[in-house]
Protein backbone atom coordinates (compact mmCIF):
# COMPACT_ATOMS: atom_id res chain seq x y z
CA UNK A 1 0.00 0.00 0.00
CA UNK A 2 1.38 3.39 -0.94
CA UNK A 3 1.03 5.93 1.81
CA UNK A 4 0.67 9.52 0.73
CA UNK A 5 0.34 11.19 4.05
CA UNK A 6 2.75 9.62 6.56
CA UNK A 7 2.08 12.27 9.21
CA UNK A 8 -1.56 11.36 9.47
CA UNK A 9 -0.68 7.70 9.86
CA UNK A 10 1.92 8.37 12.57
CA UNK A 11 -0.50 10.56 14.48
CA UNK A 12 -2.96 7.74 14.37
CA UNK A 13 -0.47 5.21 15.68
CA UNK A 14 0.89 7.32 18.54
CA UNK A 15 -2.46 7.88 20.17
CA UNK A 16 -2.01 7.17 23.90
CA UNK A 17 -4.61 4.42 23.82
CA UNK A 18 -2.55 2.59 21.20
CA UNK A 19 0.67 2.74 23.24
CA UNK A 20 2.12 -0.72 23.88
CA UNK A 21 5.70 0.25 24.76
CA UNK A 22 7.30 3.21 26.38
CA UNK A 23 10.99 3.54 27.13
CA UNK A 24 11.45 4.60 30.74
CA UNK A 25 13.18 7.97 31.05
CA UNK A 26 15.89 6.22 33.08
CA UNK A 27 16.92 4.08 30.12
CA UNK A 28 19.10 5.90 27.58
CA UNK A 29 17.79 6.17 24.04
CA UNK A 30 20.53 4.11 22.39
CA UNK A 31 20.73 0.80 20.61
CA UNK A 32 21.42 -2.13 22.93
CA UNK A 33 24.31 -4.43 22.02
CA UNK A 34 22.57 -7.52 23.39
CA UNK A 35 21.67 -10.30 20.98
CA UNK A 36 18.07 -10.31 19.75
CA UNK A 37 15.78 -11.93 22.30
CA UNK A 38 18.32 -11.83 25.14
CA UNK A 39 16.89 -11.51 28.64
CA UNK A 40 19.47 -8.88 29.61
CA UNK A 41 17.55 -6.28 27.58
CA UNK A 42 14.26 -7.11 29.28
CA UNK A 43 15.77 -6.95 32.75
CA UNK A 44 17.45 -3.62 31.98
CA UNK A 45 14.14 -2.19 30.93
CA UNK A 46 12.05 -3.34 33.86
CA UNK A 47 14.71 -2.43 36.38
CA UNK A 48 14.97 1.07 34.97
CA UNK A 49 11.17 1.28 35.10
CA UNK A 50 11.34 0.49 38.80
CA UNK A 51 14.01 3.17 39.30
CA UNK A 52 11.83 5.65 37.42
CA UNK A 53 8.65 4.75 39.30
CA UNK A 54 10.38 4.93 42.69
CA UNK A 55 11.92 8.29 41.72
CA UNK A 56 15.41 7.25 42.78
CA UNK A 57 17.41 7.95 39.63
CA UNK A 58 19.57 10.49 41.48
CA UNK A 59 20.04 8.31 44.52
CA UNK A 60 21.22 5.02 43.11
CA UNK A 61 24.64 3.72 42.13
CA UNK A 62 25.11 0.55 40.11
CA UNK A 63 27.96 -1.88 39.65
CA UNK A 64 28.41 -3.65 36.32
CA UNK A 65 31.07 -6.37 36.43
CA UNK A 66 32.61 -8.23 33.51
CA UNK A 67 30.12 -10.31 31.55
CA UNK A 68 27.72 -9.52 28.72
CA UNK A 69 26.16 -6.79 30.85
CA UNK A 70 29.40 -4.99 31.63
CA UNK A 71 28.09 -2.27 29.32
CA UNK A 72 24.94 -1.81 31.40
CA UNK A 73 26.26 1.68 32.12
CA UNK A 74 25.76 2.56 28.46
CA UNK A 75 22.03 2.03 28.90
CA UNK A 76 21.07 2.70 32.48
CA UNK A 77 20.98 6.44 33.05
CA UNK A 78 22.33 6.31 36.59
CA UNK A 79 25.80 6.66 38.14
CA UNK A 80 27.68 3.41 37.64
CA UNK A 81 30.98 1.70 38.26
CA UNK A 82 32.34 -1.09 36.11
CA UNK A 83 33.96 -3.85 38.16
CA UNK A 84 36.53 -6.56 37.55
CA UNK A 85 35.18 -10.06 36.84
CA UNK A 86 33.69 -11.40 40.06
CA UNK A 87 34.29 -8.36 42.23
CA UNK A 88 30.94 -6.60 42.03
CA UNK A 89 29.94 -7.36 45.62
CA UNK A 90 33.26 -6.06 46.96
CA UNK A 91 32.97 -2.88 44.89
CA UNK A 92 29.35 -2.45 46.00
CA UNK A 93 30.45 -2.91 49.61
CA UNK A 94 32.92 -0.06 49.17
CA UNK A 95 30.22 2.18 47.70
CA UNK A 96 27.47 1.34 50.19
CA UNK A 97 29.77 1.73 53.21
CA UNK A 98 30.67 5.21 51.96
CA UNK A 99 27.14 6.22 50.93
CA UNK A 100 24.78 4.28 53.21
CA UNK A 101 21.85 6.53 52.33
CA UNK A 102 22.02 5.79 48.61
CA UNK A 103 20.60 2.76 46.83
CA UNK A 104 23.27 0.41 45.52
CA UNK A 105 22.88 -2.54 43.17
CA UNK A 106 25.05 -4.98 41.28
CA UNK A 107 24.11 -6.68 38.03
CA UNK A 108 25.97 -9.97 37.71
CA UNK A 109 26.09 -13.05 35.52
CA UNK A 110 26.29 -16.56 36.93
CA UNK A 111 29.99 -16.94 36.18
CA UNK A 112 30.68 -13.61 37.80
CA UNK A 113 28.54 -14.14 40.87
CA UNK A 114 28.92 -17.84 41.58
CA UNK A 115 32.32 -18.87 40.15
CA UNK A 116 35.08 -16.28 40.14
CA UNK A 117 33.17 -14.03 42.51
CA UNK A 118 31.68 -16.72 44.75
CA UNK A 119 33.72 -15.62 47.74
CA UNK A 120 32.86 -11.94 47.38
CA UNK A 121 29.15 -12.74 46.98
CA UNK A 122 29.09 -15.13 49.93
CA UNK A 123 30.84 -12.74 52.28
CA UNK A 124 28.85 -9.68 51.23
CA UNK A 125 25.74 -11.76 51.89
CA UNK A 126 27.07 -12.94 55.23
CA UNK A 127 27.91 -9.39 56.30
CA UNK A 128 24.36 -8.47 55.42
CA UNK A 129 25.54 -5.73 53.09
CA UNK A 130 22.48 -3.63 52.47
CA UNK A 131 22.36 -3.70 48.67
CA UNK A 132 20.59 -5.47 45.83
CA UNK A 133 22.21 -8.13 43.71
CA UNK A 134 20.55 -8.77 40.37
CA UNK A 135 21.73 -12.20 39.34
CA UNK A 136 21.25 -13.20 35.71
CA UNK A 137 21.36 -16.98 35.53
CA UNK A 138 21.63 -17.99 31.87
CA UNK A 139 23.47 -21.24 32.62
CA UNK A 140 26.47 -20.31 30.45
CA UNK A 141 29.27 -17.81 30.07
CA UNK A 142 27.69 -15.50 27.53
CA UNK A 143 30.40 -12.96 26.92
CA UNK A 144 33.19 -15.46 26.28
CA UNK A 145 30.90 -17.42 23.94
CA UNK A 146 29.23 -20.21 25.76
CA UNK A 147 31.52 -22.03 28.16
CA UNK A 148 30.17 -23.97 31.13
CA UNK A 149 29.00 -21.88 34.09
CA UNK A 150 28.54 -22.99 37.70
CA UNK A 151 24.81 -22.98 36.91
CA UNK A 152 25.02 -25.10 33.75
CA UNK A 153 22.63 -27.97 34.39
CA UNK A 154 23.45 -31.65 34.29
CA UNK A 155 23.89 -32.94 30.76
CA UNK A 156 23.79 -29.47 29.22
CA UNK A 157 26.14 -29.03 26.27
CA UNK A 158 28.48 -26.05 26.31
CA UNK A 159 31.81 -25.42 24.57
CA UNK A 160 33.69 -26.71 27.63
CA UNK A 161 31.23 -29.50 28.36
CA UNK A 162 30.84 -30.66 24.74
CA UNK A 163 29.49 -34.06 25.86
CA UNK A 164 27.17 -32.52 28.42
CA UNK A 165 27.94 -31.47 31.97
CA UNK A 166 29.01 -34.50 33.94
CA UNK A 167 28.63 -33.75 37.65
CA UNK A 168 31.13 -36.50 38.53
CA UNK A 169 34.01 -34.49 37.09
CA UNK A 170 32.53 -31.01 36.62
CA UNK A 171 30.54 -30.58 39.80
CA UNK A 172 26.83 -30.01 40.23
CA UNK A 173 24.91 -26.96 39.09
CA UNK A 174 25.14 -24.48 41.92
CA UNK A 175 22.01 -23.01 43.46
CA UNK A 176 23.56 -19.91 44.95
CA UNK A 177 20.30 -18.45 46.20
CA UNK A 178 19.52 -21.54 48.27
CA UNK A 179 23.13 -21.58 49.47
CA UNK A 180 23.04 -18.10 51.01
CA UNK A 181 19.37 -17.91 52.04
CA UNK A 182 19.99 -19.37 55.54
CA UNK A 183 22.54 -16.67 56.40
CA UNK A 184 21.19 -14.19 58.96
CA UNK A 185 22.55 -11.23 56.96
CA UNK A 186 20.45 -12.18 53.96
CA UNK A 187 17.04 -10.49 53.88
CA UNK A 188 15.48 -11.52 50.62
CA UNK A 189 16.17 -14.23 48.07
CA UNK A 190 13.87 -14.84 45.17
CA UNK A 191 14.12 -16.60 41.82
CA UNK A 192 12.25 -15.19 38.85
CA UNK A 193 12.37 -15.35 35.05
CA UNK A 194 11.70 -13.11 32.06
CA UNK A 195 10.63 -15.71 29.48
CA UNK A 196 6.91 -14.87 29.61
CA UNK A 197 4.95 -11.67 30.09
CA UNK A 198 3.67 -12.90 33.42
CA UNK A 199 7.17 -13.75 34.60
CA UNK A 200 8.43 -10.35 33.51
CA UNK A 201 5.75 -8.69 35.67
CA UNK A 202 6.70 -10.83 38.65
CA UNK A 203 10.39 -10.06 38.22
CA UNK A 204 9.66 -6.35 38.16
CA UNK A 205 7.70 -6.66 41.38
CA UNK A 206 10.57 -8.58 43.00
CA UNK A 207 13.08 -5.90 41.99
CA UNK A 208 10.89 -3.23 43.48
CA UNK A 209 10.43 -5.15 46.71
CA UNK A 210 14.18 -5.63 47.01
CA UNK A 211 14.78 -1.89 46.72
CA UNK A 212 12.10 -1.24 49.31
CA UNK A 213 13.81 -3.68 51.68
CA UNK A 214 17.07 -1.88 51.03
CA UNK A 215 15.42 1.40 51.98
CA UNK A 216 14.33 -0.23 55.24
CA UNK A 217 17.92 -1.33 55.79
CA UNK A 218 17.03 -5.02 56.01
CA UNK A 219 20.24 -6.35 54.43
CA UNK A 220 21.38 -8.38 51.47
CA UNK A 221 18.79 -8.94 48.74
CA UNK A 222 19.32 -11.34 45.84
CA UNK A 223 16.98 -11.37 42.87
CA UNK A 224 17.97 -14.28 40.67
CA UNK A 225 16.55 -14.17 37.17
CA UNK A 226 16.60 -17.36 35.12
CA UNK A 227 17.42 -16.00 31.70
CA UNK A 228 18.36 -17.13 28.23
CA UNK A 229 21.33 -16.96 25.91
CA UNK A 230 19.93 -17.68 22.47
CA UNK A 231 23.26 -17.03 20.76
CA UNK A 232 25.31 -19.50 22.74
CA UNK A 233 22.49 -21.98 23.18
CA UNK A 234 22.22 -21.81 19.38
CA UNK A 235 18.46 -21.34 19.52
CA UNK A 236 15.98 -18.80 18.25
CA UNK A 237 14.69 -16.41 20.94
CA UNK A 238 11.41 -18.35 21.13
CA UNK A 239 13.16 -21.71 21.38
CA UNK A 240 15.36 -20.30 24.11
CA UNK A 241 12.35 -19.06 26.10
CA UNK A 242 10.83 -22.50 25.80
CA UNK A 243 14.10 -24.03 27.00
CA UNK A 244 13.96 -21.75 30.04
CA UNK A 245 10.41 -22.90 30.69
CA UNK A 246 10.81 -26.61 30.06
CA UNK A 247 14.38 -27.37 31.08
CA UNK A 248 15.83 -24.68 33.34
CA UNK A 249 12.85 -23.77 35.50
CA UNK A 250 12.24 -27.39 36.56
CA UNK A 251 15.80 -27.40 37.99
CA UNK A 252 15.63 -23.77 39.17
CA UNK A 253 12.05 -23.44 40.43
CA UNK A 254 10.69 -19.90 40.52
CA UNK A 255 9.43 -18.16 43.62
CA UNK A 256 10.59 -16.63 46.88
CA UNK A 257 13.28 -18.53 48.76
CA UNK A 258 13.49 -16.14 51.70
CA UNK A 259 11.29 -13.19 52.52
CA UNK A 260 11.85 -10.82 55.44
CA UNK A 261 9.20 -10.27 58.06
CA UNK A 262 8.25 -6.66 57.70
CA UNK A 263 6.45 -4.93 60.53
CA UNK A 264 3.70 -2.83 59.05
Amino acid at each position, binding site marked *: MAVDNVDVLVEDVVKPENLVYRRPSTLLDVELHYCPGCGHSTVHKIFMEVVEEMGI*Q*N*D*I*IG*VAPVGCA*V*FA*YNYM*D*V*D*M*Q*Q*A*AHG*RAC*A*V*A*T*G*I*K*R*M*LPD*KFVFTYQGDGDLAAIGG*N*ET*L*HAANRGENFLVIFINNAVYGMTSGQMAPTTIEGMVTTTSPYGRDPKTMGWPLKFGELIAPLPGVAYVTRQAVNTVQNVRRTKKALQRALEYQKMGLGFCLVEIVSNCPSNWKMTPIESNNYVQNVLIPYYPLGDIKVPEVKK
Partner: protein
Amino acid sequence: MGEVKLMKGNEALAEAAIRAGVDAYFGYPITPQSEVIEYLSREATKRTGMVVLQAESEVAAINMIYGAAGCGKKAMTTSSSPGISLMQEGLSYIASAELPCLLANINRGGPGLGTIQPAQGDYFQAVKGGGHGDYRLLVLAPYNVQEMADFVKLGFELAFKYRNPVMILADGALGQMMEKVELPPQEQRVHIEYPWATTGKPKNGERRVITSLHIQPEKMEEINLRLQRKYKQMQEEEVRYQTKNLDDAEYIFTAFGLVSRIAMKAMDLGRQRGYKIGWIRPITLFPFPTKIFAEVAQRVKGILDIEMNSGQMVEDVKLAVSGATRVEFYGRMGGVVPTPEEILENFEKMFIKGE
Protein backbone atom coordinates in the same frame (compact mmCIF):
# COMPACT_ATOMS: atom_id res chain seq x y z
CA MET B 1 55.69 21.05 67.90
CA GLY B 2 52.96 18.45 67.53
CA GLU B 3 52.30 15.56 69.84
CA VAL B 4 55.34 13.30 70.14
CA LYS B 5 54.98 9.60 70.82
CA LEU B 6 57.02 6.42 70.81
CA MET B 7 55.34 4.16 68.26
CA LYS B 8 55.76 1.21 65.96
CA GLY B 9 55.90 2.12 62.27
CA ASN B 10 52.65 0.31 61.57
CA GLU B 11 50.88 2.09 64.41
CA ALA B 12 52.25 5.47 63.37
CA LEU B 13 50.88 4.88 59.89
CA ALA B 14 47.49 3.91 61.31
CA GLU B 15 47.38 6.89 63.67
CA ALA B 16 48.34 9.20 60.80
CA ALA B 17 45.48 7.79 58.74
CA ILE B 18 42.97 8.66 61.46
CA ARG B 19 44.45 12.14 61.78
CA ALA B 20 44.44 12.68 58.01
CA GLY B 21 40.66 12.27 58.01
CA VAL B 22 40.73 9.10 55.95
CA ASP B 23 37.22 7.81 55.18
CA ALA B 24 37.79 4.08 54.87
CA TYR B 25 40.23 1.28 55.47
CA PHE B 26 39.63 -2.15 53.94
CA GLY B 27 42.21 -4.82 54.69
CA TYR B 28 43.12 -8.38 55.50
CA PRO B 29 45.56 -9.45 58.21
CA ILE B 30 49.09 -10.49 57.28
CA THR B 31 52.37 -10.30 59.20
CA PRO B 32 54.31 -8.01 59.52
CA GLN B 33 51.60 -5.34 59.21
CA SER B 34 48.50 -6.61 61.04
CA GLU B 35 48.98 -3.86 63.66
CA VAL B 36 47.53 -1.41 61.14
CA ILE B 37 44.09 -3.02 60.96
CA GLU B 38 44.18 -3.86 64.68
CA TYR B 39 45.01 -0.28 65.63
CA LEU B 40 42.37 1.14 63.30
CA SER B 41 39.72 -1.32 64.52
CA ARG B 42 40.41 -0.13 68.06
CA GLU B 43 40.72 3.60 67.44
CA ALA B 44 39.40 4.87 64.15
CA THR B 45 35.62 4.50 64.06
CA LYS B 46 35.03 5.85 67.53
CA ARG B 47 37.25 8.87 66.89
CA THR B 48 36.31 9.98 63.38
CA GLY B 49 33.60 7.65 62.12
CA MET B 50 36.09 6.19 59.65
CA VAL B 51 34.88 2.91 58.17
CA VAL B 52 37.22 0.03 59.06
CA LEU B 53 36.33 -3.31 57.53
CA GLN B 54 38.16 -6.62 57.62
CA ALA B 55 37.59 -7.99 54.13
CA GLU B 56 37.41 -11.67 53.19
CA SER B 57 40.65 -11.37 51.19
CA GLU B 58 43.04 -8.86 49.71
CA VAL B 59 41.21 -9.36 46.41
CA ALA B 60 38.01 -8.13 48.03
CA ALA B 61 39.80 -5.38 49.97
CA ILE B 62 41.28 -3.71 46.90
CA ASN B 63 37.92 -3.85 45.13
CA MET B 64 36.20 -2.29 48.14
CA ILE B 65 38.79 0.47 47.78
CA TYR B 66 37.81 0.79 44.11
CA GLY B 67 34.16 1.24 45.06
CA ALA B 68 34.87 3.71 47.86
CA ALA B 69 37.44 5.69 45.85
CA GLY B 70 34.93 5.84 43.01
CA CYS B 71 32.66 7.79 45.37
CA GLY B 72 35.44 10.35 45.85
CA LYS B 73 36.34 9.13 49.32
CA LYS B 74 39.77 8.76 50.89
CA ALA B 75 40.18 5.00 50.99
CA MET B 76 43.25 2.97 51.88
CA THR B 77 44.59 -0.47 52.58
CA THR B 78 47.80 -2.04 53.79
CA SER B 79 49.26 -5.49 53.33
CA SER B 80 52.49 -7.38 52.91
CA SER B 81 53.98 -9.07 49.87
CA PRO B 82 51.67 -12.09 49.22
CA GLY B 83 48.63 -9.91 49.90
CA ILE B 84 49.92 -7.17 47.62
CA SER B 85 50.29 -9.78 44.87
CA LEU B 86 46.59 -10.54 45.23
CA MET B 87 45.77 -6.85 44.81
CA GLN B 88 47.50 -6.44 41.48
CA GLU B 89 44.45 -6.95 39.27
CA GLY B 90 42.49 -4.44 41.30
CA LEU B 91 45.32 -1.91 41.18
CA SER B 92 45.44 -2.18 37.42
CA TYR B 93 41.71 -1.40 37.28
CA ILE B 94 42.10 1.47 39.75
CA ALA B 95 44.98 2.97 37.75
CA SER B 96 43.06 2.62 34.50
CA ALA B 97 39.83 4.05 35.91
CA GLU B 98 41.95 6.85 37.41
CA LEU B 99 40.85 6.58 41.00
CA PRO B 100 42.84 7.93 43.94
CA CYS B 101 43.82 5.63 46.79
CA LEU B 102 46.65 4.85 49.17
CA LEU B 103 48.16 1.49 49.99
CA ALA B 104 51.19 0.37 51.91
CA ASN B 105 53.28 -2.72 51.28
CA ILE B 106 55.18 -3.74 54.40
CA ASN B 107 57.49 -5.90 52.32
CA ARG B 108 58.53 -9.31 53.69
CA GLY B 109 60.92 -11.89 52.31
CA GLY B 110 59.82 -13.94 49.31
CA PRO B 111 59.13 -15.38 46.82
CA GLY B 112 56.21 -17.58 47.81
CA LEU B 113 55.09 -17.53 51.40
CA GLY B 114 58.70 -16.63 52.16
CA THR B 115 59.44 -15.22 55.56
CA ILE B 116 57.97 -12.53 57.77
CA GLN B 117 61.36 -10.79 58.02
CA PRO B 118 62.01 -7.47 56.23
CA ALA B 119 62.92 -7.46 52.54
CA GLN B 120 62.78 -5.27 49.44
CA GLY B 121 62.04 -7.93 46.87
CA ASP B 122 58.84 -6.19 45.77
CA TYR B 123 60.61 -3.15 44.27
CA PHE B 124 59.98 -4.21 40.67
CA GLN B 125 56.35 -5.04 41.42
CA ALA B 126 55.89 -1.64 43.05
CA VAL B 127 57.60 0.63 40.54
CA LYS B 128 57.10 -1.11 37.21
CA GLY B 129 53.34 -1.48 37.41
CA GLY B 130 52.84 -4.86 39.05
CA GLY B 131 49.57 -5.83 37.43
CA HIS B 132 48.67 -6.06 33.76
CA GLY B 133 48.93 -3.20 31.31
CA ASP B 134 50.95 0.01 31.10
CA TYR B 135 50.39 1.79 34.36
CA ARG B 136 52.42 3.07 37.30
CA LEU B 137 51.89 3.59 40.97
CA LEU B 138 53.43 6.62 42.59
CA VAL B 139 55.75 4.96 45.12
CA LEU B 140 57.03 6.54 48.35
CA ALA B 141 59.77 4.83 50.37
CA PRO B 142 59.92 5.90 54.02
CA TYR B 143 63.13 5.30 55.99
CA ASN B 144 61.93 5.87 59.53
CA VAL B 145 58.78 5.79 61.63
CA GLN B 146 58.30 9.54 61.18
CA GLU B 147 57.95 9.08 57.44
CA MET B 148 55.64 6.10 57.92
CA ALA B 149 53.30 8.68 59.45
CA ASP B 150 54.11 11.65 57.19
CA PHE B 151 53.61 9.79 53.94
CA VAL B 152 49.95 9.06 54.66
CA LYS B 153 48.90 12.68 54.23
CA LEU B 154 51.37 13.24 51.41
CA GLY B 155 50.24 10.02 49.77
CA PHE B 156 46.59 11.10 49.70
CA GLU B 157 47.52 14.56 48.40
CA LEU B 158 49.40 12.98 45.53
CA ALA B 159 46.71 10.34 44.94
CA PHE B 160 44.04 13.00 44.53
CA LYS B 161 46.29 15.37 42.57
CA TYR B 162 46.91 12.67 39.97
CA ARG B 163 43.87 10.43 40.52
CA ASN B 164 46.29 7.55 40.76
CA PRO B 165 47.05 4.89 43.37
CA VAL B 166 49.97 5.77 45.65
CA MET B 167 51.98 3.08 47.40
CA ILE B 168 54.07 3.40 50.52
CA LEU B 169 56.76 0.75 50.08
CA ALA B 170 58.26 -0.07 53.45
CA ASP B 171 59.50 -3.30 54.99
CA GLY B 172 58.88 -5.49 58.00
CA ALA B 173 61.48 -3.73 60.11
CA LEU B 174 60.05 -0.25 59.50
CA GLY B 175 56.62 -1.60 60.33
CA GLN B 176 57.71 -3.25 63.57
CA MET B 177 60.37 -0.97 65.04
CA MET B 178 59.54 1.73 67.58
CA GLU B 179 60.77 5.27 67.21
CA LYS B 180 59.85 8.74 68.27
CA VAL B 181 57.27 10.25 65.95
CA GLU B 182 55.76 13.72 65.84
CA LEU B 183 52.11 13.26 64.95
CA PRO B 184 50.19 15.64 62.69
CA PRO B 185 47.11 17.47 64.03
CA GLN B 186 43.67 15.84 63.66
CA GLU B 187 41.93 16.84 60.44
CA GLN B 188 38.19 16.66 59.97
CA ARG B 189 36.71 14.15 57.56
CA VAL B 190 35.13 16.20 54.81
CA HIS B 191 32.90 15.15 51.96
CA ILE B 192 33.99 16.72 48.69
CA GLU B 193 31.80 16.32 45.60
CA TYR B 194 34.08 15.50 42.69
CA PRO B 195 32.58 15.79 39.22
CA TRP B 196 33.83 12.28 38.37
CA ALA B 197 32.65 10.52 41.53
CA THR B 198 29.57 8.28 41.53
CA THR B 199 27.41 9.59 44.33
CA GLY B 200 24.08 9.46 42.50
CA LYS B 201 23.38 11.07 39.12
CA PRO B 202 23.23 14.87 39.50
CA LYS B 203 19.74 16.30 39.02
CA ASN B 204 20.88 18.65 36.29
CA GLY B 205 23.83 16.81 34.87
CA GLU B 206 25.19 13.75 33.16
CA ARG B 207 25.52 10.41 34.88
CA ARG B 208 29.03 9.45 35.98
CA VAL B 209 30.61 6.22 34.83
CA ILE B 210 33.77 4.76 36.31
CA THR B 211 35.28 2.22 33.98
CA SER B 212 38.48 0.80 32.59
CA LEU B 213 36.79 -0.76 29.57
CA HIS B 214 37.28 0.82 26.17
CA ILE B 215 36.66 -1.61 23.37
CA GLN B 216 37.78 0.75 20.58
CA PRO B 217 41.59 0.49 20.24
CA GLU B 218 41.87 4.20 19.40
CA LYS B 219 39.98 5.11 22.56
CA MET B 220 42.08 2.72 24.66
CA GLU B 221 45.23 4.20 23.20
CA GLU B 222 43.98 7.66 24.06
CA ILE B 223 43.50 6.53 27.67
CA ASN B 224 47.01 5.10 27.66
CA LEU B 225 48.43 8.34 26.31
CA ARG B 226 46.64 10.28 29.02
CA LEU B 227 48.08 7.99 31.68
CA GLN B 228 51.56 8.37 30.22
CA ARG B 229 51.24 12.18 30.26
CA LYS B 230 50.31 11.91 33.91
CA TYR B 231 53.37 9.78 34.69
CA LYS B 232 55.55 12.28 32.84
CA GLN B 233 54.10 15.09 34.93
CA MET B 234 54.93 13.07 38.05
CA GLN B 235 58.51 12.78 36.79
CA GLU B 236 58.65 16.54 36.40
CA GLU B 237 56.94 17.56 39.62
CA GLU B 238 57.13 14.83 42.23
CA VAL B 239 60.69 13.52 42.38
CA ARG B 240 61.91 13.44 45.96
CA TYR B 241 65.26 12.29 47.31
CA GLN B 242 67.77 13.03 50.03
CA THR B 243 71.56 13.37 49.77
CA LYS B 244 74.58 13.62 52.06
CA ASN B 245 78.23 14.44 51.45
CA LEU B 246 77.89 14.85 47.71
CA ASP B 247 80.21 17.90 47.51
CA ASP B 248 83.52 16.07 47.79
CA ALA B 249 82.23 12.56 47.02
CA GLU B 250 84.30 10.18 44.94
CA TYR B 251 81.94 7.29 45.56
CA ILE B 252 78.20 7.10 46.20
CA PHE B 253 76.28 4.71 48.38
CA THR B 254 72.65 4.52 47.38
CA ALA B 255 69.77 2.62 48.95
CA PHE B 256 66.11 3.15 49.76
CA GLY B 257 64.05 2.67 52.90
CA LEU B 258 65.59 0.96 55.90
CA VAL B 259 68.76 0.03 54.02
CA SER B 260 69.53 3.68 53.34
CA ARG B 261 70.09 4.11 57.09
CA ILE B 262 72.51 1.20 57.16
CA ALA B 263 74.21 2.58 54.06
CA MET B 264 74.55 5.96 55.79
CA LYS B 265 76.30 4.27 58.70
CA ALA B 266 78.55 2.43 56.25
CA MET B 267 79.36 5.77 54.63
CA ASP B 268 80.37 7.22 58.03
CA LEU B 269 82.60 4.20 58.72
CA GLY B 270 84.12 4.58 55.26
CA ARG B 271 84.84 8.27 55.78
CA GLN B 272 86.67 7.36 59.01
CA ARG B 273 88.91 5.20 56.82
CA GLY B 274 89.45 8.09 54.42
CA TYR B 275 87.09 7.16 51.59
CA LYS B 276 85.16 10.12 50.23
CA ILE B 277 81.72 8.55 50.11
CA GLY B 278 78.46 10.38 49.44
CA TRP B 279 74.90 9.13 49.90
CA ILE B 280 71.71 9.29 47.88
CA ARG B 281 68.38 8.05 49.13
CA PRO B 282 65.54 7.97 46.59
CA ILE B 283 62.30 8.83 48.41
CA THR B 284 60.06 8.51 45.38
CA LEU B 285 60.89 5.19 43.73
CA PHE B 286 58.48 6.09 40.97
CA PRO B 287 59.08 8.72 39.71
CA PHE B 288 62.74 7.74 40.14
CA PRO B 289 65.23 10.54 40.90
CA THR B 290 67.05 10.03 37.64
CA LYS B 291 68.60 13.49 37.31
CA ILE B 292 70.63 13.49 40.51
CA PHE B 293 72.20 10.16 39.56
CA ALA B 294 72.98 11.38 36.05
CA GLU B 295 74.58 14.49 37.56
CA VAL B 296 76.83 12.82 40.13
CA ALA B 297 77.78 10.09 37.67
CA GLN B 298 79.80 12.73 35.79
CA ARG B 299 82.14 13.29 38.72
CA VAL B 300 82.35 10.14 40.87
CA LYS B 301 84.42 6.97 40.47
CA GLY B 302 81.54 4.67 41.18
CA ILE B 303 78.18 4.01 42.79
CA LEU B 304 77.41 1.15 45.15
CA ASP B 305 73.71 0.30 45.33
CA ILE B 306 72.65 -1.69 48.38
CA GLU B 307 69.29 -3.45 48.66
CA MET B 308 67.55 -6.27 50.47
CA ASN B 309 66.93 -8.14 47.23
CA SER B 310 68.91 -9.51 44.31
CA GLY B 311 69.37 -6.11 42.67
CA GLN B 312 66.26 -4.29 41.53
CA MET B 313 66.60 -0.55 42.07
CA VAL B 314 70.12 -0.89 40.70
CA GLU B 315 68.58 -1.28 37.25
CA ASP B 316 67.03 2.18 37.56
CA VAL B 317 70.33 3.58 38.81
CA LYS B 318 72.11 2.12 35.79
CA LEU B 319 69.49 3.53 33.44
CA ALA B 320 69.95 6.92 35.08
CA VAL B 321 73.75 7.02 34.83
CA SER B 322 73.68 5.45 31.40
CA GLY B 323 77.22 4.09 31.57
CA ALA B 324 78.76 7.37 32.80
CA THR B 325 80.21 5.70 35.89
CA ARG B 326 80.69 2.27 37.36
CA VAL B 327 77.65 0.89 39.20
CA GLU B 328 77.97 -2.08 41.54
CA PHE B 329 75.44 -3.88 43.66
CA TYR B 330 75.50 -5.50 47.05
CA GLY B 331 72.43 -7.16 48.51
CA ARG B 332 71.05 -9.66 50.99
CA MET B 333 67.83 -11.55 50.44
CA GLY B 334 65.10 -13.54 52.08
CA GLY B 335 64.80 -11.39 55.19
CA VAL B 336 68.53 -10.98 55.95
CA VAL B 337 69.48 -7.37 56.79
CA PRO B 338 73.01 -6.30 55.78
CA THR B 339 75.31 -4.69 58.36
CA PRO B 340 77.30 -1.47 57.79
CA GLU B 341 80.53 -3.42 58.18
CA GLU B 342 79.72 -5.94 55.47
CA ILE B 343 78.65 -3.15 53.12
CA LEU B 344 81.94 -1.34 53.64
CA GLU B 345 83.92 -4.55 53.27
CA ASN B 346 82.23 -5.28 49.94
CA PHE B 347 82.76 -1.69 48.84
CA GLU B 348 86.47 -2.04 49.54
CA LYS B 349 86.60 -5.33 47.66
CA MET B 350 84.82 -3.89 44.62
CA PHE B 351 86.20 -0.38 44.41
CA ILE B 352 89.38 -0.01 46.48
CA LYS B 353 91.34 -3.25 46.33
CA GLY B 354 90.47 -3.78 42.71
CA GLU B 355 91.63 -0.26 41.87
